């Protein structure tokens, strides 16, 4: 007799068995640990490349095209592409890496590679960089850039694009105030005073919700004065004479009314609206500020000169964003081969103006498109040589405790807000910061 599918055939026992099976499958799926890492052999399993939205809407489209055009050599895996949003990206990467379902190669937060390296999840890039010495990519990196990725155990990542902090001014407002572009801290103070007479702020920045620029700029002033947050032993060393002098100077700017009194709580959008409203005549931000402000004001906005501090030094801070390789890969050789291909073909991301940060390679910076951009030219020529990292003054190479204690952490935000609030003194604020950083290192 042919079987018939009837309601009666779907027995109670059958239903219970099916339901139990589904539940058991769910349980097993939830508890399974993923495939785990693999060594250097070949694999037919494609490697996962995760990249962030580094530019405008065209960026990831072009980036995906470049990735999917990769034709691996025989025995090496092809690459798949996944765009990861900035919203909750820490959670996205952490949970994926912890469950071994993460990418083989990715970009991400600027200090993410150093965190994952500390947890033993990163495949160091030393052999990749060695291989790049013969094909010219190694020597193509901007001066000192590779050094920022070097840890005691090897290169945690490869520089990808630069997020920089520099000064900006509105040339019309400076002209109306009758002052020239400052080149020293003293001159800068005079510029601020002149702008104030016209109801314009000269120390324009923000440190509100989701805006970490305030803490970046204060650190940049410390580096400018020969200071910074970490010593050569990679220990926090905030309460130094250089840092105190720098923060006293900033507090003077704040207390003299050269800073917007609400700056401590300004989001990036607030900062941009103040530039647009011509309330900021001189300030500090990233390379993309003018593009973000837009409109007529953008054409008046010019990147300023690095300032010379009382110590006679110049300095600033940049954040080399990077691409990292993970131990959890179908093939380490495959990861390296893919990155070699990617770095040889990624120049279009800059030449087609997708909005990505400054390029890490001299060959890209030397293209006619980038040479025609005055912001890029100015930053690479005048600012790039003087940039330090979070590791300053002890060194340039980033490390685990930077990611863990200062990069976007609450103590840094509190520090910036207390200084920009103007109701503290340099030593108290720096001591509080020092204690908080030490607390996070425990």
């Amino acid at each position, binding site marked *: 007799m042919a079987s018939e599918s009837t309601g009666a055939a779907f027995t109670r026992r059958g239903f219970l068995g099916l339901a139990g099976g589904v539940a058991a499958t769910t*349980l097993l799926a939830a508890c399974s640990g993923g495939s785990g890492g693999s060594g250097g052999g070949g694999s037919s399993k494609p490697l996962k490349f995760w990249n962030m939205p580094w530019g405008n809407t065209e960026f990831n489209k072009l980036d995906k095209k470049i990735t999917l055009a990769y034709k691996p050599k025989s025995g090496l895996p092809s690459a798949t592409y996944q765009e990861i949003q900035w919203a909750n990206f820490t959670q996205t990467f952490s949970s994926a890496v912890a469950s071994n379902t993460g990418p083989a190669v990715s970009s991400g937060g600027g200090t993410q590679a150093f965190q994952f390296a500390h947890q033993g999840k990163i495949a160091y890039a030393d052999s990749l960089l060695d291989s790049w010495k013969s094909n010219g990519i190694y020597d193509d990196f901007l001066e000192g850039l590779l050094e920022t990725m070097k840890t005691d155990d090897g290169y945690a990542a490869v520089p990808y694009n630069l997020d920089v902090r520099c000064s900006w001014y509105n040339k019309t407002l400076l002209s109306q105030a009758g002052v020239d572009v400052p080149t020293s801290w003293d001159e800068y103070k005079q510029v601020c005073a002149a702008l104030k007479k016209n109801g314009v702020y000269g120390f324009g920045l923000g440190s509100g*919700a989701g805006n970490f620029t305030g803490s970046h700029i204060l650190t940049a002033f410390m580096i400018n004065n020969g200071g910074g947050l970490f010593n050569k032993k990679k220990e926090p060393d905030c309460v130094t004479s250089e840092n105190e002098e720098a923060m006293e100077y900033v507090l003077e700017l704040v207390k003299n009314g050269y800073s917007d009194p609400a*700056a401590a709580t300004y989001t990036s959008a607030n900062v941009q609206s103040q530039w647009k409203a011509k309330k900021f005549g001189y300030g500090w931000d990233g390379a993309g500020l003018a593009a973000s402000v837009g409109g007529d004001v953008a054409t008046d906005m010019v990147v300023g000169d690095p300032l010379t501090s009382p110590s006679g030094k110049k300095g600033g801070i940049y954040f080399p964003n990077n691409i990292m390789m993970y131990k959890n890969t179908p093939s380490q050789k495959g990861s390296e081969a893919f990155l070699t291909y990617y770095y040889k073909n990624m120049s279009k991301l800059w030449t087609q103006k997708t909005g990505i940060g400054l390029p890490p390679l001299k060959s890209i910076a030397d293209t006619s498109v980038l040479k025609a951009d005055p912001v890029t030219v100015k930053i690479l020529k005048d600012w790039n040589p003087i940039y330090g990292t979070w590791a300053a003054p002890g060194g340039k190479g980033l490390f685990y405790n930077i990611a863990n204690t200062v990069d976007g952490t*609450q103590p840094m935000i509190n520090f910036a807000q207390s200084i920009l609030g103007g109701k503290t003194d340099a030593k108290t604020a720096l001591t509080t910061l020092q204690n908080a950083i030490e607390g996070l290192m425990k």
Partner: protein
Amino acid sequence: MSTESVAGALKKARNGVGVAGSGRSPSSGKRNRAMSHTWTFLLFAIPSLLLLVLLNLYPVIYAGWQSLRNGDLIDAGAFVGFTNYVDVVQQPGFWHAAVFTLVFTVVGVFGSWAAGLGLGLLLRTKIPAGGLWKVLLLLPWVVPTVVSATSWNWLVATPQSPLPELAKALGFGNVLFLADPLLAQITVCVFKVWISFPFMMMMMSSALASVDTTVYEASKVDGAGTWQTFRQITLPMISRTTYVSWILMTIFCVNDFPTIFLLTGGGPVNATQSLVVLAYQTVFQNYQVGPGVAIAFLMTIVLVIISVLLYRQIRKVNIE
């Protein structure tokens, strides 16, 4: 039947014994069938129970386990017992956040309740285009918090924003709604009331609609004034819904992350940092998972206690 025998019969009935006497016990076949049904129901419930355990209980147990360890987002770390809990409660930042959470919750619950009840009462009167007003008044609740926070930021953030300009025009000088710690706290609380009052308005409107109008007519006949009617009739009649809405709003306020985080990020200098914001920042900005989860657990315990107390109040109302 005497009163005593009626009471006795009722007692027997409650105990499952027939009024006429104990009678014969159910046959073993019937009992077996009943048992079989119970097991069937239980077996049917198992898949759902399993899913419930997986989706709810497992994360809670895992989080509890994390709070007893010193790990990070990837590595669980070593077992440290209740050290995280002890460390957390010894930090002044925790108590500052706890006090602000309390203030935020009290203002959020009672501010939105007062506004919601007021508007609920107003909307019961015959006002022109009442339906339209109801829809418009619901907007703060309906609009995503991200959008509301952006709008409020535009309203108050810079000295050129509309509200600071208005304050200046009224002679209050340069009012820094977000940059001044006290004003930032007030602004965040007002923002919470603004976002929440439509929910309260809905709850109170439905409670008010369920009150029998004859009660009001009777009180009118008895000569009760407006205030007396409100205090002696309206409030008691809607008390059950009021307590339920207070419990819900307390939970909403204590767990409210976006309202604060999007408007102030917990600043300036932690002035508007609530416990849930502190827990988030501890885990995801400072990468201290154990202490962050410990904060969340402490918060949950307090929330459960408050909810139980309010539920008891509801039961009291029911009994009365």
